[in-house]
């Protein structure tokens, strides 16, 4: 099947007939309206599987092709990128908004980054994790871009990966203000876009060129 036959925001499943969709739920926050909408479409379209993903989203699996547009129409939610070569999601722990241990506002920074960068086209998919303290509940050290809240500011790490070939991210900068962190993420994404081959994840780029080259270019 040609790729342009696949409906918007849908992922073809194993049976090569049905699709999955992943609505956008930035940093995992959902409202009663979102829950209601998901419950409503789940029942109305008899969606076989609704599954919470590790990226703090809810996937609806097993949709017929002609249902995809109708479901999106009914949900009135945005698409959460799940297959494209772009920023997929920003994961964040509760941070100072809720958690007793939080040192920084990870939800706030996570939301800001999500709004700015999700869907941004890149050489390969990119995952972001924002943790409000060094416990690293958003697993920042194994994300392409990780932020860790410390007493004196944000630590930014890059090039991590948690897949079949795990890689611990390198520290790019420390003691950043929120504004500085957002700017540095932006500059890193630009650098990655210009310096990485197609489908090469940030971990592979870092392995190839080393963190010092990145530091030299960005700091």
């Amino acid at each position, binding site marked *: 099947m040609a790729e342009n036959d696949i409906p918007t925001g849908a992922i073809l499943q194993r049976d090569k007939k049905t699709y999955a969709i992943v609505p956008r739920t930035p940093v995992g*926050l959902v409202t*009663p309206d979102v*829950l*209601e909408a998901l419950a409503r479409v789940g029942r109305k379209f008899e969606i076989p599987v609704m599954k919470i993903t590790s990226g703090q989203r809810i996937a609806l699996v097993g949709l017929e092709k002609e249902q995809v547009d109708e479901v999106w129409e009914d949900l009135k939610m945005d698409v959460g990128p799940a297959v494209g070569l772009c920023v997929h999601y920003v994961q964040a722990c509760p941070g100072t908004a809720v958690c*007793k241990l939080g040192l920084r506002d990870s939800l706030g920074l996570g939301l800001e980054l999500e709004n700015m960068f999700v869907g941004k086209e890149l050489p390969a998919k990119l995952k972001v994790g924002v943790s409000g303290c060094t416990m690293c509940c958003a697993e920042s050290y194994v994300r392409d871009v990780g932020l860790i809240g410390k007493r004196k500011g944000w630590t930014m790490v890059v090039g991590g990966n948690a897949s079949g070939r795990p890689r611990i991210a390198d520290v790019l900068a420390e003691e950043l203000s929120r504004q500085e962190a957002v700017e540095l993420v932006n500059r890193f994404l630009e650098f990655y876009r210009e310096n990485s081959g197609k489908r090469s994840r940030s971990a592979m780029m870092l392995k190839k060129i080393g963190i010092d080259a990145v530091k030299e270019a960005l700091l």
Partner: protein
Amino acid sequence: MKNKEIIEGLPKGAIVQRGGGLYSVTPRMPLGQITPEHLNTINSVVQEFNLSGVRVTAGQRLKIQGIPEDKLKAVIEKLGPVGEFCKYYVQACPGTNACRLAMQDSMGMGAKLEEFLNGFTLPWKLKTGVSGCSMSCSESYVRDVGLVGKNKGWTVLFGGNAGKRVREGDILAEDVSEQKALEIIGKALDFYSRNAKVRERTARFVERVGIDAVKEAVFGSTQ
């Protein structure tokens, strides 16, 4: 200590939030599977008690937050069967149920593992990930217990961590059946339970005792 009394008096599974006075609960929803009925139950509780919100967590669960102390018991009761707490979480990718790339049934295996882990009482928290292929979408290499589905069976990993001191799990076995994988995990966890320090995660435990000691406990010294 007042704090300690409060924490010990809490219904199991409730977590105190920052600032005190408010709690959050994370109902059990193995492998992240939910139904419209679950969503409706959670939604009606959020609305009835006028709670601040719900978050999707990275552990494939929904966390209900902002519950005042005096409403905590009522909230948990209302959640009913959804309110049962998850002991050790199992993260799983869709596997052969849905994914085009999958080599093994990660959802099926995940369900068995969840069941199996409920029989254990471990020294500290344990996170597990079951991936249906070597892409490792459940991040099996950085979980305390990780399973990766390959052509010929399961790869069993032990001692991984994705926190502030990342550790890649060690391979305990490859190409094993579901049953054999659970057996190996059981033996490794027994050894960990008997020998770990208080609040010692598997990653730190393996660093301290060495993976060979774990392998010996699992397979015997002849191997």
